[in-house]
């Protein structure tokens, strides 16, 4: 948070008061604000809520959402879905367990996503506390505002995915670690461990943030932690994480877990190495990324353990997931809060009074700050709104939103296709969606029969011809999203439809000129 002193005309970013670079957080004396202090977090929370809830179920679930929602349904004893989707998979079940409580009362796509959105709003608030703990209230508010409108957070929080809730607990852990850094009291470290345990209990990849904390401690010589505190913290982390391996054992899924890990490590990369470099900066907001980098550079003389903590929290996931063969759009979401705090640190230092010298010209500081604020806000709000109201298209990035037409095709099948019918789709993602919404068993044509080349929870169809000849498959579903990824399987499915008297019984257009989903009825 900036001081109330007049900013210098020589520098865009006002210097940070040396008293606030180390030690307890500080708050400047300011004139009594015209807007009450509580109004800012409330307003930010409202913006976050609006962006996360508006038209929340306009587009149906994608494959990942279907999986997590069906697990929650299974835990809520919804027999129809637990018959088709195993409750126990490779991931932990904290979020699904919470969602199952809601599903016991009422089950809908909207409610499923609403629970996820609530975690997203929680992340915004946790980001506020993290920013406030590190740099004061103003930085906390700006960080929260950035997180509220950040397309990356908005897009993921609007989906029933584990990453959103995981990042909520991770951000709480970050805020608590920041408190530990400020106070050096071990109790904050214990609490951070508990929050980190919940992070891992939501999604197992959260474990890499333990490495981030380790790196932070190692790179911060002034931070001394007693061995006893390390042991207690690790014990808390271990105990809180315990349900994950226990549930895997209870569900007899230990082998699946092993296979999943082997498959993840040995599978061919699903994206190029530059995937995150291309996808994540616009998702974070170019303005935010620029503010974080520029601020980091201009304020380098003020560098302290705070930046070390934030950089470790950012660098470890980036390095890990860049090296990890499987790349997913939502995987780097844990870096969003620390990036937002770093950007907020810079933006909060922009002057609002006086002038800024640019060569011979003197520009009113308020005007310049306003331009920067509008530019940053535009890089956040425009893509966020596009995520809420996506344009029609025939191809999609996995994990970046719902699948237009998928839910509608599934519901059409639920109404018009006899119970017990079995469906062959192009790939496992559409198989999940069709299976969830139609309650008809669906297989993916592209699922490899080689265990090393497929997700172990997917069922392969080694010989679709035989199943079709035997009458075990009665419907084929072609979709443009899977077809855009694999023309070979697209051609094969169309060939099967032609050879087995395929008749088109339904088409979904989802706002496109050409159908995005085609349902064929087939017979031997």
């Amino acid at each position, binding site marked *: 948070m900036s*001081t109330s002193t007049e900013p210098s005309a020589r520098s865009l970013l006002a210097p940070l008061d040396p*008293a606030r670079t180390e030690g*307890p*957080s*500080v*708050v*400047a*004396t300011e004139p009594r604000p015209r807007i009450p202090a509580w109004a800012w977090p409330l307003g930010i929370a409202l913006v976050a809520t609006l962006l996360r809830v508006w038209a929340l179920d306009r587009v149906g679930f994608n494959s990942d959402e279907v999986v997590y929602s069906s697990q929650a349904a*299974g*835990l809520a*004893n919804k027999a129809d879905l*637990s018959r088709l989707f195993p*409750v*126990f998979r490779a991931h*932990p*079940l*904290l979020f699904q*367990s*919470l969602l*199952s409580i809601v599903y016991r009362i009422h089950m809908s796509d909207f409610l499923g996503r609403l629970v996820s959105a609530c975690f997203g709003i929680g992340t915004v608030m946790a980001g506020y506390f993290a920013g406030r703990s590190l740099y004061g209230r103003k930085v906390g508010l700006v960080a929260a505002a950035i997180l509220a409108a950040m397309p990356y957070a908005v897009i993921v929080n609007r989906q029933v995915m584990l990453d959103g809730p995981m990042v909520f607990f991770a951000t*709480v852990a970050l805020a*608590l670690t920041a*408190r530990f850094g*400020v*106070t050096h*009291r071990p*109790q*904050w470290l*214990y*609490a951070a461990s*508990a*929050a980190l*345990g*919940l992070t891992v*209990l939501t999604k197992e990849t959260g474990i890499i943030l333990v490495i981030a904390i380790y790196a932070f401690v190692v790179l911060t010589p002034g931070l001394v932690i007693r061995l006893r505190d390390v042991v207690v913290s690790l014990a*808390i982390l271990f*105990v*809180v994480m*315990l*349900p994950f391996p*226990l*549930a895997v054992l*209870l*569900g007899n899924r230990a082998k699946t877990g092993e296979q999943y890990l082997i498959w993840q490590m040995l599978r061919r990369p699903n994206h190029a190495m530059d995937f995150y470099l291309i996808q994540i900066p616009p998702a974070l907001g170019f303005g935010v990324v620029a503010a974080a980098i520029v601020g980091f550079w201009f304020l380098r003389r003020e560098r302290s353990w705070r930046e070390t903590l934030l950089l470790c929290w950012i660098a470890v996931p980036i390095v890990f997931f860049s090296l990890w063969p499987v790349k997913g759009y939502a995987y780097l979401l844990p870096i969003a809060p620390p990036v937002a705090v770093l950007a907020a640190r810079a933006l909060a230092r922009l002057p609002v009074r006086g002038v800024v010298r640019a060569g011979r010209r003197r520009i009113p500081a308020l005007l310049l700050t306003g331009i920067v604020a509008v530019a940053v806000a535009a890089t956040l709000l425009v893509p966020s709104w596009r995520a809420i109201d996506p344009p029609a298209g025939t191809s999609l990035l996995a994990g970046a939103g719902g699948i237009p037409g998928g839910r509608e095709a599934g519901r059409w099948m639920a109404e018009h*296709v*006899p*119970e*017990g*019918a*079995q469906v062959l789709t192009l790939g496992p993602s559409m198989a999940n969606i069709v299976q969830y919404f139609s309650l008809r068993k669906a297989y993916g044509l592209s699922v490899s029969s080689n265990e090393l080349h497929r997700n172990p929870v997917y069922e392969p169809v080694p010989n679709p011809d035989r199943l079709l*000849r*035997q*009458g*075990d498959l*009665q419907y084929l579903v072609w979709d443009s999203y899977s077809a855009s990824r694999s023309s070979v399987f697209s051609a094969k499915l169309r060939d099967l439809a032609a050879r087995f*008297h395929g*008749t088109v019984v339904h088409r979904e257009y989802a706002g496109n000129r050409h159908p995005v989903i085609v349902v064929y*009825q087939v*017979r*031997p």
Partner: protein
Amino acid sequence: MVAGLACGVVVALTSVPAGASAAPSVAGSSPRTPIQHVVTLMQENHSFDNYFDGYPGTDGPAKSTCVPVDLLAAKPCVKPFVIGNRPLTSLNHDRAALETAHNGGAMNGFVAAQRGRLGASNLTMGHYQRSDLPYYWNLAGQYVLFDRFFSSSPGTSAANHLFWVSGTAGPLAGESVPAAGLGDLPTIFDRLQAAGVSWKFYVQNYDPRATYRRGPHAERSAQIARVPLLAYTRYIDDPELFSHIVPVSQYFEDLQHGTLPAVSYIVPSGSSERPPSSIASGQRFVRSLVDGLAASPEWSTSAFIWSYDTSGGWYDHVPPPQVGQDGYGFRVPALLVSPYARKGFVDHRQLDSTSILRFIEDNWSLPPLAARDANASSLTSAFDFAAAARPAALVPADRPIATVTRARTNVVLVLYGALLVIALALIGFVIARMRPPKEIVLP
């Protein structure tokens, strides 16, 4: 008594509840039940015990059953056994063989009837089980299985097919189709045609050139036995009537286009299950027909009934009652699939293929064709028209998949819930107890 039964059936048909009343969807007479489409199929050469020995709730052979090899001595004898992977052959099932098997009602001549037939003598006592016929057994579990459905005649396949369409064996009792054809013998299709009720006869691997005029030994002569209409001059020569006999592919097109007639007869060719041909192939054929119907809009007003022409020489332990001059043959498998069929019901009423005729006649108010169909029991008891139509469901050809047990999911919920509460309590405790550091107020 039979007449009384028939009256009862008529009363039952006329007392259909208002909620299940039928709306006419086809030209001609309105059906008197919610059933607007009857589809009937005749497969070949299996007895009831051969297919459903051991099916719960049915009349199966006693455990002590042992049929002597020679009628003159009780031993040695052959007990019923599971066929498994044994090689199959066509069993002797002509009238003489059936009479030997019947042995005046003792039902102990089945092995003797096959004597001299290579590989067949003991085979007659073989039977299939659920794992061999998963689809049929699963269907029986969902719909209606008839365990006293007899072949209409102890005669040939052709005679039983003729019974199926005309209620009599006519000139076919033990004989092949006469050179002059079947003459003026009336069929159910004459009745339907006169009443303006739509009908079709679907034939697998249909060859429209294979009619009785080619002679009994011509290529594809089996088609004439299966499709009695091809032995009628009027059905061959009248283009309008002839157009009702179509390939089975037309059945699927009619289902898709919503043009399924009120009455559909279907006969197989390669998928007839007639030994030694594959029963799996027959199951697939039946499955495709039933699945096609279930997936069509006509499902909610349809009934699919299939049976077998003769017992094919296979053992069956129930002596057939003597009905009329031509009597009954042995029991054959028969099933009914319909949204109004009672679920998992085993119907013990005495029926034969003329019962199907009787149901069609009663449903569309048609006069009977002959004494047998006039006196036959209808299929009405197998339906529950008071209940709402069941939604279409495709029955799998294997056992259902086991589901996740509830107990374990509850343990998971408790585990995760407990640790969430503990962790949040710890975090809350720390936040509550650890006051934030004293804020420094800058000058």
